[in-house]
């Protein structure tokens, strides 16, 4: 970890230059005709029926994000979803608010957008082109540094292996510079209005300490040599977690500055995580696998879900009752050891669940926002 902090020093020094380069790159791209990154999200009356992925609360408002850069919001008084103005059209995969006004959403092509009016209008803060520039800087520096170290210790085979790897990564970045950004961001988490984290495909981790004005690459802060996808971020206070592909689980005790790898209870992928009001960590993913930890991830216990479908999203109420949702309209209700499984009549792929003002639930997923209430439906198992 000490070695890595040294990297960060360099990266931070070079950072402002990288951002300038990236922004000029943005404008250049924008002139080349249609690009989904820069195209404003279109007005739509059917956005609530298109793919939607995630929920967040902005004060009394509920916000949901999804395909075509769609962001929808609705307060308790409103009887329908309202579409926000959004300066991108990529598939948005995650949304989080630091307070009722300040929120961030991330999505494909490395896009990060920001709102400061509680979700009504969203501006781009970052794109995959910026990410490529950051990566280019990062690997160029890394190559340079390793070359220097190798010159000092020519016989160190670890160093030479690391150099090969860094050079290979740099080549990939150069290809990406030609091709454009292909790595989606998959999750965003706001510790507070300044400290933000965004995780994504192929081990991408971004951090900002100034509310997203500047983002820096933090992928190297976690031990993920295979570059597995970092599917979900969650946390409570300064404690943060990343749940990812192939059973990866990481924890940070210092709001994302440093990370440690946790012992995973499962080798299949996790798609979601959350921390409930009793400070239990929930992680869930492939084939109905879900785990719960009451000691901040030091140990996990398997949760009986009575389902074998993928679970992607969850919500815990104040009393600790937890709902997990997934494929084929599956809704798992967990209360102590009483587990009930429901199937939403739509049978849709569900990605998340959120309470609605009528005492029921909103679900998002393949078919947009759906309503559901427990009382309407009998449990199957």
């Amino acid at each position: 970890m000490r070695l890595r902090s040294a990297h960060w020093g360099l990266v931070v020094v070079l950072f402002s230059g990288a951002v300038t380069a990236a922004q000029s790159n943005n404008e250049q791209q924008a002139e080349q005709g249609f690009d989904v990154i820069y195209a404003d999200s279109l007005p739509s009356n059917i956005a609530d029926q298109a793919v939607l992925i995630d929920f967040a609360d902005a004060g009394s408002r509920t916000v949901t994000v999804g395909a075509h850069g769609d962001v929808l919001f609705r307060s308790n008084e409103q009887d329908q979803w309202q579409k926000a103005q959004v300066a991108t059209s990529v598939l948005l995969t995650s949304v989080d608010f630091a307070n009722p006004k300040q929120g961030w959403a991330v999505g494909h092509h490395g896009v990060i957008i920001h709102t400061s009016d509680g979700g009504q209008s969203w501006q781009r803060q970052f794109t995959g082109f910026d990410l490529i520039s950051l990566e280019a800087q990062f690997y160029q520096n890394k190559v340079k540094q390793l070359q220097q170290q190798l010159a000092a210790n020519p016989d160190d085979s670890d160093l030479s292996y690391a150099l090969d790897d860094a050079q290979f990564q740099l080549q990939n970045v150069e290809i990406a510079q030609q091709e454009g950004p292909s790595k989606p961001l998959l999750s965003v988490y706001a510790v507070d209005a300044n400290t933000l984290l965004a995780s994504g495909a192929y081990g991408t981790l971004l951090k900002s300490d100034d509310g997203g004005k500047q983002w820096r690459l933090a992928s190297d802060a976690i031990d993920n040599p295979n570059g597995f996808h970092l599917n979900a971020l969650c946390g409570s206070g300064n404690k943060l977690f990343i749940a990812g592909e192939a059973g990866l689980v990481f924890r940070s005790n210092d709001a994302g500055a440093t990370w440690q790898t946790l012992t995973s209870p499962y080798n299949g992928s996790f798609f979601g995580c959350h921390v409930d009001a009793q400070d239990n960590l929930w992680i869930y993913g492939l084939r109905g696998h879900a785990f719960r930890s009451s000691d901040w991830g030091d140990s996990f216990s398997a949760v009986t879900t009575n389902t074998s479908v993928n679970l992607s999203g969850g919500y815990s109420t104040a009393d600790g009752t937890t709902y997990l949702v997934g494929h084929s309209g599956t809704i798992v209700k967990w209360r102590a050891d009483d587990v009930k499984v429901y199937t939403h009549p739509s049978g849709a792929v569900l990605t998340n669940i959120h309470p609605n003002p009528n005492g029921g639930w909103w679900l998002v997923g393949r078919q947009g926002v759906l309503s559901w209430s427990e009382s309407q439906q009998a449990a199957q198992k």
Partner: protein
Amino acid sequence: MEDLTTQKKPGAIEKLLFSFRKTWFIIFAILTVFLGYQAAQVRPDASLSKMIPAKHPFIQNYFDYRSDLATLGNVVRVVVENKNGTIFEKSYQQTLQKITDEVFYIPGVNRSGLRSLWTPNVRWMEVTEEGFVGGPVIPDDYDGSEHALEELRTNVLRSGEVGNLVANNFKSAVIYIPLDEINPDTGEQLDYSAFSDKLESTIRDKYASKDIAIHITGFAKLIGDLIEGAKQVGLFFLLAIVITLVMLYWYSRCWRSTLTVLSCSIIAVIWQLGIIKLIGSGINPYSMLVPFLVFAIGVSHGVQIINAVGANRIHGNDKLQASRLAFRGLYIAGLTALASDAIGFTTLMVIDIEVIKELAIAASIGVAVVVLTNLGLLPVLMSYVGVSEHGVKYLQKSEQQSHPLLTFFSRFAKPKWAYSAIAVSLVLLSWGLYYSQQLAIGDLDSGAPELRQDSRYNKDNAFLVDNYSSSTDIFVVMAKTEPQKCIAYQNLEMMDRFSWVMENTKGVQDVKSIVYVSKMGMFGLNEGNLKWFSLNRNQYVINASVGKAPDGLINPECSMAPIIIYLDDHKAETLKTVVAAVEEFKQQYQPQGVEFLMAAGNAGIEAATNSVIESAQTKMLLWVYGVVIVLCFITFRRFRTVACIILPLAFTTVMSQGLMAVMGIGIKVATLPVIALGVGIGVDYGIYIYSRVKEALERGLPLYETYQYALANTGKAVGFTGLTLAIGVATWIFSPIKFQADMGILLTFMFLWNMLGALILIPALARLFRIGRNSA
């Protein structure tokens, strides 16, 4: 009342015709045998490419990619419904399996593409820690037990086939049958009619029971049903002949003249069909109307002839002289009337749709033939057979006692009645004008517009639409790229934007294309994580994501990807909105590298047809009215006279448009020609009546007496003509083919209304225009 034509001198044509009666008779006989032989070889032809405007850019684009699009559209769906339960029952599954097996062996079925719960290509799939797992939906150890059925239910749910192969309510399942247009073994073209029959005999007849219902939809079935329906038209023709026979006898009370008129009219039909065959044209479901019209026009002109022959017999002329006088009195009016018919029909050629052109040619030929048979042959024949004593007596009797209807109609030459009639007409006209504003272009009903709403096909179709997640109104936009670029990232991204814009267009239900396949592929390749439901910039990733693309979503050269837009309906307004949205998108985004070409699919073709119809509508009306006005002017040389004849016609046109709007019949391929036919034939009444009016006016009679004279000489014949024409086409109202029924309704209305219009409004307008010297 004495016929005034007797004082005329015989003309050259009359001399030519009557001096060589035997020669003419032989020539006609030989021609009839020859053309009859030709006519016997005419086969109905339901080629869809003729029913669409081939020169329209949409259709040109469609033709460019026709073979690439064939796999998309040419599909038959057989829905097997369990009337008393769900599909998860042993006996139901047995039936479904048997039907799937039967379908497999029907010639024309693309066997590898055949999909049903019982074909091995229908699988469920799931992501596990080790990657994808899956299997056929029917468990390998299926034995019909409760356990196996439960497993089947689970597999169906995770197969993603609910709404596609399995109904949303689990009460029915689909057998999806793609067809080979060209049989790969024999190289033969698929015989739609035979295929459709085979489905009926091996599937529906065999398996439909009190428990199982079979619903069949698809283009091939539709064509099969159309051809089946067209065959019934033959029966209608026989019916029309029988009714006409009865009416002719009732009118003439003379078997000789009845049969002569009927024979001449049938000969006209035979000639018309024979000539069509000779010039290499065919008969289609639209031009099937023509023999009916030719027959009816033939009869109506024949009636004028025998009416005149009979009248001349009363006045003491022998058979020959009576016929000659009849010819002399009628041939100018007859020629004018028929010429206006024929030329009126040719104006249909301005509509650039092959079936209408064929109809125009067939109808023009038919009318030209009627000139020969019923103005030429008929008088010659009548000079031999004559009108029987019985017929002459009947005519004499009816002439002596003024017919109450005759008295009734002649009143319209008097001021009070004339002005009342005009006032009533103006009220009706404003009704017609009001409703004709609501007249829509195109087909207005759901389902296959060719067939009736309550036809079995449309009921089956409605069943499919109600129980499955699919619309049958499809508008296809072809995304054209350079070869090998159809799935290039930038192009896909533009197609995705286009799809989203279209999805947000009013009337659009859903949009599917290779873009959707790529997104689904990304979703599947990434462990079923919906966060990946997006296009990716990496071309290798895209290539992998579309690895399992179904046939037809990209062409073999990868230079075109159809974007399939599912619509709520195929109403003209919906289609217009969609076309406008596509144009606007192209304007706004100026796509580079990918070109969005309209249009294929039933709705795309209909959009093209509508635009052709819409632009042809006014043009055609101008032409047909222009032609009849010129012809009337040549005959009568007076503007006021022309106005007297044309205004009732225009009145009828407006009224029929109002009627169409009220009845929910749109202006379409079938109904646009009807307006021209109505005007072309409708003008006959006016010409016949007015030529008599003119004779009387030349003798200086006042208007009322003039009109009485005209009615006495031709009124009965005009009334009879209207009835025969109406009966000829009215049988079509019962056709199982919707557009034929629409044509039948409209033509019947127009023929009757034109007749009344002529009988009532000509004298009324003549009064209004102060025609006749002693107008009192």
